[in-house]
Structures are given as C-alpha cells and as structure tokens.
C-alpha cells in the first residue's frame, strides 16, 4: 500500500475528536444498599497465545496467566484460550506469540458495589455468585438478563460487569430496575 504517497497536512490535526464513554450521562445510580457506576477500563486488549506460546507470552509480559475463571494481576481470563489485559502496557514483541486485539472501546464496564450487590445480580445473572463459591478475582462468562456478560468479583461486595458497549443503555436499565425492585421490598 502506498502510504508513502500520503501527504501530511501540517502539524495540527484538522479536526478534534472527543471521546465519549459507553454509559456517559447514564450513571452513577444508587438505590438501597447498592451503587452502580461506570468503570474506566483504560487500555484493554485481548491476548490469545498462539499454539504452544503461553510460556513465551508469560515470559514476555513478566507474569503468569490465570486459570479458567480466574484473575492474575491485570490479566483476567476472558474466553477459551483468551485473556483480557486491563490497563497494561503490551510490548509490540508480544505479537509474535499471541493475537493481540484492542478491546478498549468494545465493552461497557460497570461496577456494582454495596451490601446488596449480590442480591441485585441474583435477579439477572444465572450463576452462583455466593462469596464462598465466587471469590475475589473469580470471573465468568455468563448472561446479564438477555445480554452477554463477563463478570469479575473485585471485592467482598463489588463486581465488575462487562457487556457490549452498544448495550450500555439496556445494561443500566436492567440493573437499575433490579435495584429498584429489590429496594421496594419491605
């Protein structure tokens, strides 16, 4: 491709693009003993080591990779043979050993926090999230209502929820509805 033929138009770009977060203007929302807010993931990239290259990837990144459904440092298990590196610098050299794909803008990341967070999620997520079974750092691919979900327990009463960016509005709607219904119980 003839990139060399492109002509630079001066030092400053001709247009300024403004960044917008997936759930901008929708959050935070608090009800009862729970708060829902948007998380800034920062740079996020999927890492899928090529065949037999997991060791090389771990060496290049200087850290071990998690087992299925677990987190190690900034690397969280994401899918079969796939990990998500959150807020991490990824050296270019890693591309030799793994498929690296920018995912920074693909996900709407929310945090659900509070004493009743588990109870709110019990309305939407069909897996066992009891503290004894789903501990801090545990993660799973599952569903949030009708939406795809990657969930991580980030604290005793805190969860990180990732779903499609385009579904941010529905995510907020579904979770806040569950929060409302739970809080309205007496």
């Amino acid at each position, binding site marked *: *491709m*003839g*990139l060399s*033929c*492109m*002509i*630079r*138009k001066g030092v400053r*770009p*001709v*247009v*300024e*693009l*403004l*960044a*917008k*977060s*997936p759930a901008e203007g929708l959050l935070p929302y608090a009800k009862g003993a729970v708060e829902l807010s948007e998380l800034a993931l920062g740079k996020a990239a*999927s890492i*899928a080591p*090529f*065949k037999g290259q997991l060791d090389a990837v771990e060496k290049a990144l200087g850290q071990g990779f998690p087992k299925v459904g677990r987190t190690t440092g900034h690397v969280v298990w994401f*899918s079969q*043979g*796939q990990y998500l590196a959150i807020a991490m610098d990824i050296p270019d050299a890693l591309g030799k050993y793994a*498929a*690296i*794909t*920018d*995912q*920074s*803008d*693909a996900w709407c990341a929310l945090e659900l926090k509070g004493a009743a967070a588990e109870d709110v999620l*019990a*309305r939407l*997520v*069909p897996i*066992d999230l*009891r503290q*004894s*079974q789903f501990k801090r750092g545990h993660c799973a691919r599952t569903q949030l*209502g*009708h*939406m795809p979900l990657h969930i991580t327990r980030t604290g005793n009463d805190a969860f990180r929820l990732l779903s*499609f*960016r*385009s*579904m*941010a*509005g*529905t995510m907020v*709607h579904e979770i806040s*509805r*569950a929060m*409302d*219904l739970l*809080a*309205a*119980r*007496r």
Partner: protein
Amino acid sequence: MRVNGKGLIDRSRPVSFTFDGTRLQGFAGDTVASALLANDIRLMARSFKYHRPRGVLSAGSEEPNALITVKRGSDAEPNVRATVQEIYEGLEVRSQNAWPSLGFDALGVNDLAAPFFSAGFYYKTFMWPRAFWERVYEPLIRRAAGLGGVSGTASAAEYEKAFAFCDLLVIGAGPAGLMAALEAGRAGVDVILADEDVQAGGRLLSETHGVEGLSGSDWAARAIAELASMENVRIMARTTVTGAYDQSTFGALERVSQHHAPSKDAPRACFWRIVAKRSILAAGALERPVAFQNNDRPGIMTASAVRSYLNRWGVAPGRNVVVFGNNDDAHRTAHDLRAAGVHVAALVDSRPDARVTGDFPVFTGAQVCGSTGRQGLEAVTIRTQSGTEKIATECLAMSGGWNPSVHLTCHMNGRPEWRDDIASFVPKGGAIPGMVTAGACNGAFSTHGALAEGQAAAMETLEALGKKGAKSDLPDAEDTPYRMSPLWAVGGTGRAWLDFQNDVTVKDVKQAAKENFRSVEHMKRYTTQGMATDQGKNSNVNALAILADVTGRGIPETGTTTFRPPYSPVPIAAMGAGAQGKGFAPERLTTSHHSTVKRKAPMIEAGMWYRPSYFPVPGESHWRQSCDREVNMVRDTVGVCDVSTLGKIDVQGPDAAAFLDFVYTNTFSTLKPGRVRYGLMLREDGTVMDDGTTARLSDTHYVMTTTTAAAGAVMRHLEFVHQCLRPELDVSMISVTEQWAQFAVAGPKSRELLNGLLDMLIDNDSFPFMACGPVSVGGVDARLFRISFSGEHAYEIAVPARYGASLFEALNEKAAALGGGPYGMEALNVLRIEKGFITHAEIHGRVTAFDIGMERMISAKKDCIGQTMAARPGLLGAEREQLVGLKPIGAVKQLTAGAHLFDPENPATREHSEGYVTSVGFSPTMGVFLGMGFLKNGRARHGQTVKLVDHMRGIETLCEVHGPVLHDPEGGKTRG
C-alpha cells in the same frame, strides 16, 4: 364467629376490607377466608359447572372452592385462593363465577339440569353440527362455566425473576422442615428454608399440642429465630416450591407484595430458580374429604381446616359443629372446639370399634349421609345401625384421613407407592436425585415422627455433603399413632362430590368406568377430575379409590395420575418477569444514535440494532421524498451512513489465511496486505450463509465483516469450524464489532470529504478501490477501507468507538458543506438494488451460490465448507430459480417484495409460480421501480416479460427480466 382467647392473630390491629362491596373487619394475621368466617360469611363462591353455593373446604393453598378476585381494574388478580390471600387495609375482594350476585346466581339453574350434565356430557351433546362447536357451543360453555376473568387491560404490576443457590433446600417449615433446617444450619451448610405460608410452623400453628413444653407456634417461632440468626441459613417465607427439575433445580414462587396495598415499585411476586446440591421435602400432608350426598355445602370443610380456623385464627366456622371422620385425628377437632367453648353437636366416627371420649354426643359405626341448607349448611343426616337421624348444625368437620403431599417427588416421572396401613400414597425413594423426604409427606403423621424424620433427613444429607452433623436431642412432642379405616364414599343415591373445583361426583367416575374410561388417566380427562388450580390435591386419591372399586382393581394397580409442575398456580407474568417493554430484548445503539434521533430519523430494528430509516429535512412529508433525496445525494455528491452494526471479526494467527480459505468459497491467502476482498461463505449443506468483505491488515491478521443480521451466527460458525473441524489450525478470533465505530462515506465527493478530515491526504494511488490501511483523523488512529455498497466511489472509515459520536458529527458537517449529508437504510437499500448487490433478503437460507450467479466464486483449487454439498444434483441448472433484476413495463408500475412471478400466459396459481420477488425500491436514478427476485432459469430469460402477482395486496405488474446490475455495470464510478 370469633372465639375469645384463641388464635395467633393480632387483635390490637384491626384491618378493614371489602367483600363484594361490603365493608368488613378482620385482624392482622387473617386470611380472607378466616376473616369472612369470622364475619359469619360462609358462602364465598359458586362452583365451576353447576354454580352451586360454596364455602371454604380447606385452610390452605389446596383450596378448591373459595376462589376470589382481588383488587380492581388492571390491578385485578383473578382466581386467588381466599385461604392464601392475607387481608390488608383497603383490600377489595370480589366473588367470581356468579351473576347477578353470589347470593342469587342465575346460572344456578344449571344445578337443576344436573342429571344431563354428567361426565362426557359436552362430548356427547355438542357434536353436531360440527361448525357450531367453535362459534356457538364453546363460547357459551366458556361463559357459563368458568373461573375469574382477566381485566382486559394490561397490568402495570411488576414481577421479578431471581436465582438462588444453596447446599440444601428444605421445602416446608413444619416440624420436619424446621428440625432438618436446624440440624443442617448448625452443621454450617448453606440452607434455604422455603415455606408457602407467611409464618413458619406448618400444622404446629393449627394444633393445640405443644413441643418441648412450648406451644407449637412458640416452638416454631423459637426455631425460626435461631435459624434467622445463622448466616448460612436463608428463610424464604410466602415461597412455594412449585417444581422439581433436572440438575437439582427447583422453581419457586414468592409472594412479595400481595399482602399489602399495591405499590407501583414493589414486585407482586418473584419466580425463583433455586439450585440446591441436596433437598429435603417436608411438604406435609393434606386432609381428604369424604364423599357423601351434598357434601359440598358452605360450612362443610375438612376437620383439620376447622382446627386451623379455631386455633390459628380464633374463628369458629359455626355456632355448632358436627365432626365426622374415619380416624382418631378427627377427634381432636371435637376436643379443641369443646375446649374453646364451641358447641359440638355430634362426633360421628365411621369405625364401629372407634374409642371416643368426650363431652358431646358420639356415634360410632355411623356415617353422615346427607346435608341440607341451600346457601349454607343447616343440618346433616346421620345413618346409624338403628336408622337415620337429622342433626341441625352450621358446620361439618370431615376427615377421610391424610394424603402425604408427594407431588414434588413425582415431577421427574416418579410414581408414589401405596401404603396399606395408612391407606395413602407415599413418595418412592430416589424419585428426585438428591432429595430425601421427611415427616407427614412421608407418612409420619405425629409431631414426634416429623421431628425425628426431619433430623434423620438432615443427617443423611449432611453425610452426602461430606459434613458431619451433631445430632441434637429430639424435642419432646406428641406421638399419637395414626389409626384409621378407609372410607372414600358413603353409599347413597344423590350427588356426592369428589372434585369440588370441577364439580365431579362419585357418579361421574362410575359413569367413566362404565363407558370404558377405566385407566385413571382416561377417567381424569373424561370427567375433568383433578384439573384447574387445585390440580386434584383434594380429590385425586378419593377418585381413584372409587375407580379402583368399580373396576375391581386395587388402588395400587389403579395408580395415580401424573403430578406435574407447578404444585400450585404460578402467574405467567412471574415466569416472564422483566420481559415486557424494554426488557423484551436488549437495545443495541450505535455511537451515532443520539445525533441520529436528534435529526428526527425514524429508527428501525435490525437484529437488536437501531438504525435510521431516513433523515427527514424540512418540507419533506413522506419517507419517499427523503429516500429519493438521499439516493440522489449519494449519486451526486456525498452521503454518510453508520455501518458499525455490520459484524467485524478479528482473525489472527499463523494459519489465519488457511482458515479463511476454508470458510470462504474464494481464496484469501492470495490477498495482499492492505487489500480488501469480497467473500462468500457457505453453510455445510452448500447453501449461502453470509457475505461480506475481508481486509488483510498483515500477513497474519485479517478483519472480516459480516452482515448485521448474521454477525452472531457467523462468529458461532467460525468457532465451530475451528474447534471441531480444523483444530490443527493456529488461529484465533474475537469480535471487534463493538470496538470500532465505522461510517460509510459514499459518493463522487467522498474523497474530497475525507481529505478535509484526515491528517494526511489520500488519492487514487495511495488508496485505490479495495485498498485498506491505517489513517489518522484528529490525531486518532483510524482504519480506512475503500469499499462500496452503493456503486459509488466510497470508503468506510473506522475509529475506536469512543470517538464515534464525534466523528459522525464531523463527517456530517463536512458533507453538508459539499451538498451531502447522512442517509438511512431506505436509501442504502435503493442504492444497492440499483447496483444489484444482495442482502439477506436474497441470501435467505435457501439459495445457493449458483442461484445468485456466484458459483464461479467457489474456488476449485481448494476445499471449503459447503463445496461438495453445493455441487449436489438439483442445486445447479435451469430448474433453479436464479437471481434476476425486474423492471415494470406495463401500465402498472408498482413492484412488491413477496410477490410471485408467472408466465403472462398462465393463471396466477401456486402450481404456475416461477419465482418470487425479494427486494424492491423506487429508483430515483432510473425513475422507475426496480426489483430483485428469483426466477426459474432466470439468467437465460433476460429481456423476457413476466407477470408479477401479489395476491395479498392485489397487485399485478408486467415486468421485464434483466440482469441484477443496472447502475454503472462497468464499475467505473467505484474505481474513479
């Protein structure tokens, strides 16, 4: 009538409610049934078929008679059991199935015609004329026979669905359930204790005998307090476990807010799915009635119900009571009533050898054989060895013995077993994996028996869970042996009711057997015994005992009908909770959504995505005006369209090229980095699956695009091919649909527009047709693809989604300056029809590459998914309907999608159809409607005339057949 000093109700908190408009008072803790009885109202409903006056039969969720409607308008809930509904201030209760009033019901005449309404009446009577069934008979029958009606307006009530997980689910909080939960809770396992009642205790709340020196209700309260203090125990009151399903999953309905005034915010009920490693069923038992003539009058109820009303709610269902039973347990009712100062008119025990002591008239070896009193019981007739005797009474407490609640154990096709000593069915062990049964539901009818079995079940379960339980001392409790002698029906001529809810009598069951419906399942369906809300809980065993008797078989051989979920009624609204309105499906919104809506573009749904139909400008009053303008705009200047919804899949790895060669019909390994190629994908059966462009970013890195609708299906397909068919290929995939906001910039001025935005200029050399590469816009790394779905010189530019909204604005601002602007799906559709490009309207799942004229894209140099199957006989050749373009040539100019194509000489009938139309649009470029469709041997028929006929819309148009591509067939514009 209230009885002083009795009951667990809170007399310091009066509660007023209305019944059929009359204001009544009860107390906190009352159900509608107990409060009505306290107000001396025995008549609560009309029966299903004969409109007979009815009162309560029971005091629990099994109630067949007292069905009521609560609340009003769209809030109204029909078929609520008066025995379950708790009263609250302002509750409105209405009776059902009566007109004009409960006291005088015009359809009560049905009762006089009863001799004609025996089992099978409908089947025999309404046979002829056949057409009358649907239009005349059925509506009539439905009106006459029925339960409560729905309001006809959409309910605004909220419902909830939820999931719960535990080591042990204990079903029922009577003595057995409480004991099991206590032992398991103390051992530290995660326990859920669910009970349908508002208060824990089960029968302990209704009996006078105590536990460990405490009253039954106090002991239960102490137990529940201890359980509530344990972090590992969750108590779910007002929660009925309704079904047992695979993998130890249980359905349960929680009544969340039905016991207080309707609130907009609180869910009415919550449908739980509880996953438990183990379960203990402690569901108790239900007392069965005895069938005798006119045993259905208001005031006749089970003996245990009378004890419940007396001991739990402080209500005597009559000023005097006759007790009738076949077992010792019934005697308690007489003793409790006597002790409370209620007059016991007689105790009648059918067993000649029964030993009864008490300060009331006793008849042993006697039976109640009839009753009188139209709207409420006035007297019963007793048959003794010496003759018959009439005794005036307002209430009859009857007991035919107890039926263990085995229902849940049968939900996975288990059949209960008959136990002769208690004349009842009990659960068969192992019917539900991981479930142990305990207490009355297991045939242990004493309190001691229940506590002991509850404890044993807990120990068994703890062991299975790998935990050690410390057996505590069993609390002292009564251990009266259950002595009974079966009595199903008292002989006599009149109608003796078995199934109160469906008005099925002993005679009906006999009639069914006589007409050879001898299997219990046939009998059930012929007589309707065991249907509707109580699902035969009160009548099942009695009915099959009668059937066993008349067919000369034993009860075990006769067997029961099948108990299926739900155990008690579950509103569909609870199961479908959250799926109304916005909850129906997620909304996928593009980054340009906000701006698009602000421009007043009507949105359409594509998959779950919302996309603009068109962008109206002032002066346009019809979508066609907007669409025509947008098409002309793209053809003349430049248009901008959000195409982010197309699926984008990142394919990377040393074998990425080989993988794509295998899933696409054409070759991608030969594509140079920095180039894009159109690809066609087949299903394994050789049919076209999807199409789209794939760009090669580097040797080992491709980005595939799919159609919007098939993005998910293609991703699934790729994963299947990789994981199952070609696992040896070193390739990995991830969706980047959401990562990139992508916009089409199409039209002769597209490059001019882009050069006003990009940080570096492009020209035809740096970016020829089908080129791709990195660019920078506003300092942001972007991707540019020179591809076209309109037939114009066009690009697609992609930026990380966070910049999508901003870039869309910038693109439109620049476009406006060039005389262009945004365009929507309508224009996009017309543009591609003019150019002959296909969408899923054409590749709808039944067409092959040959049909769309792309069979040469199936490369013979390599294997690919669907290659062999696409070459099957019948998938190639003149007999196939092939893709063609259509143009009207007669007086009628309209084309419609879905219309069929015919030879003009042939009648427009099914057997003459030669094809069909898939896409149409008015082309402002050509000034005429254009269509695409499939026509038999179509490619050989260009220039011929066919007749388009749309029978649905009444349109008939003569069309000329041509090739699909009309706009710029040489492609000069795209390359320019």
